[in-house]
């Protein structure tokens, strides 16, 4: 038990480099300040996570409802009428309801779950814990960040209940459809609420992002140089940079849209004849909005996937008992992805009439992203090679992440090539591509993170058996759902269709659609099992008996089992080495807090 000594070493090796925060026991928390308007980054992380889980259930349930329509276009489900009323008259949803569900599914999952729920949770939880800080640079801003997100959630939730329904023009909210109430029932008050909610959401993201960046740049503990940080922190760093630089552009696009809707401007509107009359707007460009939207929209997919990459890197190293392979190359590729993320947005717009010469540069830069992505995949493969892998639910989800990231990433090479994109644009191929690479993968990264750091969050374990069932059903189900969609897309089957039966080119997939819908229901039920496991384990899970259950090197495991506000009861430990000394010199692992020994080999 050589670890025994190291576990307690933090008590001994304390130098007075850090100012003395006597955070423990210095104030009594009441319910409001502890659980509601908490300033503790760990509690805020939990708030983000639980809000995200609630949104995920709603968003996923919406997909079950519209998959019922796609799989069984002729069947009726009377219970739908009971919950949706006239939106599902006779037990079959209307096209308007279908489009509202599709739009909300996208908005909720992309922004509220995979942005706020994923990076909001883990940036908050892990940045102070892993860099060795008592809390965020500004705990108050951090608290505001959550509550702005909460407000955004309330407004979005309210939009579900207005009489004309929520926004229904697709999560990208392209004008003129989203600008004109006459064009779609969802573009009445629904879009206003959507825009307000998203504006609040952007505020939340900026408050959070600035905080993450300043914390990890300024508040690292003694010895924690940038190149000693775990890859999780690096990925949260790049995620926050992406968000801070691109969300304001999205907000400006939204403000222009709001003005087109209510102030009579013509930023996006021109030459429109609708509802029996010609509008006065001239000279605007509907394409301008797409540029502004995708300038965030593309970095957004990396905002979603980078935190997952970071957590997977960490979990794979811990569970393989091996250092992550090519630590510097991993940082370099994160950096490359971060830069390229800003230079590829127009690949979403190859068929908008974009200048083909300009398009050529976007093809080149888009396919360039495959290089850092390939480096990451090969590095993960080499990390598990010759390891000694423990299959915890977290490590299984990490392996699943690598698998789906490969599958979904490779189809990106298809779509990034503009000539192929002409045929596949806005078909089911695109749905398959981004659901696998940023939906399933990001969720796998998130699940890996939840299973891995649940003991740190709640001082208890989640149930492993349910975790294994959750993993296997989800992995198999995800492939069964999305793999065949590539074929539908190759046939040119368009996205966002309510019903395909009147089309001779696309009606050959009726049986397949039914199959997919059934799998969707099974996978959804399995996610509920996970949610149950999560909440049950908070209260009844097996208790942690040691500080460092996974035998990891990083700082968060040097805190007490249930750390108070301030994280370390004594001084913050000093860091002497990188985060990946696993199986070095015959030792299972060496914590970051242990000084480099005289006879130690270099890495």
């Amino acid at each position, binding site marked *: 038990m050589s670890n025994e000594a190291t576990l307690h070493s933090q008590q001994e090796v304390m130098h007075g480099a850090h100012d003395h925060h006597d955070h423990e026991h210095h104030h009594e928390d009441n319910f409001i300040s502890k659980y509601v308007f908490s300033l503790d980054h760990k509690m805020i992380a939990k708030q983000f996570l639980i809000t995200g889980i609630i949104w995920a259930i709603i968003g996923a349930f919406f997909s079950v409802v519209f998959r019922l329509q796609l799989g069984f276009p002729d069947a009726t489900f009377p219970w739908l009428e009971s919950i949706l009323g006239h939106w599902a008259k006779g037990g079959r949803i209307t*096209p308007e309801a279908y489009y509202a569900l599709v739009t909300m599914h996208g908005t909720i999952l992309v922004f509220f779950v995979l942005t706020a729920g994923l990076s909001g949770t883990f940036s908050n939880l892990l940045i102070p814990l892993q860099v060795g800080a008592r809390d965020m640079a500004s705990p108050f801003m951090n608290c505001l960040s959550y509550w702005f997100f909460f407000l955004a959630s309330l407004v979005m939730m309210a939009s579900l209940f207005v009489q004309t329904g929520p926004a229904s023009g697709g999560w990208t909210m392209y004008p003129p459809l989203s600008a004109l109430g006459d064009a779609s029932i969802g573009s009445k008050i629904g879009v206003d609420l959507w825009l307000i909610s998203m504006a609040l959401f952007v505020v939340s993201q900026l408050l959070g992002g600035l905080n993450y960046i300043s914390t990890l740049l300024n508040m690292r503990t003694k010895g924690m140089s940038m190149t000693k940080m775990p890859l999780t922190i690096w990925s949260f760093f790049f995620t926050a940079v992406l968000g801070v630089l691109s969300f304001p552009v999205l907000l400006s696009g939204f403000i222009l849209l709001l003005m087109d809707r209510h102030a009579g401007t013509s930023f996006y509107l021109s030459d*429109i004849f609708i509802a029996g009359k010609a509008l006065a707007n001239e000279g605007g460009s509907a394409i301008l909005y797409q540029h502004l939207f995708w300038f965030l929209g593309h970095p957004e997919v990396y905002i979603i996937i980078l935190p997952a990459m970071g957590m997977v890197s960490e979990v794979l190293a811990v569970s393989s008992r091996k250092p992550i392979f090519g630590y510097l190359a991993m940082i370099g590729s994160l950096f490359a992805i971060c830069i390229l993320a800003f230079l590829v947005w127009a690949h979403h717009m190859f068929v908008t009439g974009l200048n083909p010469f300009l398009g050529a540069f976007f093809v080149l830069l888009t396919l360039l992203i495959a290089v850092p992505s390939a480096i990451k995949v090969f590095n993960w493969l080499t990390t598990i090679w010759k390891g000694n892998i423990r*299959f915890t639910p977290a490590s299984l989800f990490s392996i699943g992440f690598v698998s789906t990231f490969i599958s979904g990433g490779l189809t990106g090479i298809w779509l990034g090539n503009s000539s192929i994109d002409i*045929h596949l644009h806005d078909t089911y191929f695109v749905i398959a591509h981004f659901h696998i690479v940023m939906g399933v993968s990001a969720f796998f990264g998130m699940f890996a993170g939840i299973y891995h750091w649940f003991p740190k969050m709640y001082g208890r374990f989640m149930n492993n058996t349910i975790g*294994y069932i959750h993993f296997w059903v989800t992995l198999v189900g995800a492939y069964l759902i999305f793999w065949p969609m590539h074929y539908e897309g190759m046939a*040119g089957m368009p996205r966002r269709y309510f019903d395909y039966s009147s089309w001779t080119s696309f009606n050959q997939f009726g049986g397949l659609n039914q199959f997919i819908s059934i799998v969707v229901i099974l996978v959804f039920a399995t996610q509920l099992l996970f949610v149950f496991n999560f909440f049950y384990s908070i209260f009844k899970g097996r208790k942690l008996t040691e500080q460092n259950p996974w035998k990891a090197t990083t700082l968060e495991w040097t805190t007490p089992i249930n750390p108070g506000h301030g994280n370390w009861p004594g001084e913050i430990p000093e860091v002497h080495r990188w985060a990946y000394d696993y*199986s070095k010199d015959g030792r299972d692992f060496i914590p970051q807090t242990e000084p480099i020994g005289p006879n130690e080999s270099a890495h």
Partner: protein
Amino acid sequence: MSGFLAVLVIVLIFIVIFQIAKASEYVSILKGEKKARQQSNRINGFLLIAFLVLGLIGVYYCNNLLKGKILGESASVQGEGVDTLIYVTLAITGVVFVGTQILLFWFAFKYQEKEGRKAFYFPHNNRLEVIWTVIPAIALTVLVAFGLKHWFQLTSDAPKDAAIVEITGKQFNWLIRYPGKDGQLGRRDFKKIDEAASNPLGMDWDDQLSKDDFMATEVHLVVGKPVKFVIGSRDVIHDVGLPQFRMKMDAVPGIPTTLWFTPKFTTKQMKEKTGNPDFTYEISCDQMCGSGHYSMRGVIVVETQEEYDAWVAKQPLQYSLAHPAPEAPKADSTQKTVAANIAKP
């Protein structure tokens, strides 16, 4: 009632799974953490390798099942290039896909935790890193080069002799206009749109070029002859999707766009080729445009020059529909359908 039963069954299954999970947790505590971990490692290691094998078989099976229902031969000359590029990309990404997935699941299975195994401390290796930076970079350069070659061909100017057809999207159908004998489309202004006066496109009747333009309910094209679509929209963004021709272009209000291609097979030939008597070339709207998006279907008929000429001869000029002579002869059935189509809101 059946819904209630279904919920009951699901809840029961949940409870059973939960009880098993709880019991197995107690068992693992009794057995000791190490032993429990070894057992779950063996099971999951086996499942990983089983998933790999069954997954690859599944990929093969899925392909056999569905390959007959997709692509088919491109119905346009230009689409052949797209298909070639798809197959080249499929070959490259396919090899990478199979290779990396095998490595991933094989490594996970092979290097699962075993008594006495020591993990290999292997933090980095510059040569390996360079290899897997350079090889993908080369492969992607090839793909970019191929892709851009086709891209510039596809987006090049249409040949001078190409026929011209104007397609304008509106919620929720397509308005199709032919330039008539002069081969040139007349001016349009969205402020002149007047459905009641048979002018759904806002054609400018002062423009001489407008006088011989005619509108149709279907697009008719001549096989083997290049055609250029001039694409626009009257309200929101639509998209002219032509899956069999491998073509697609957005219809944006205020900004005209174009695409061109050369149809290779007549509709009749395609019916024989596909063995599907209902085969139709369809225009699908590929950009979300409102509640009727899914029903925004257009039809293209590709035919021989003779058939096409006969069809053109039957099309009434839009000018004469908009300016009916006081004692005009009774309109024939084609006119009626055109007028009915136009009258749709």
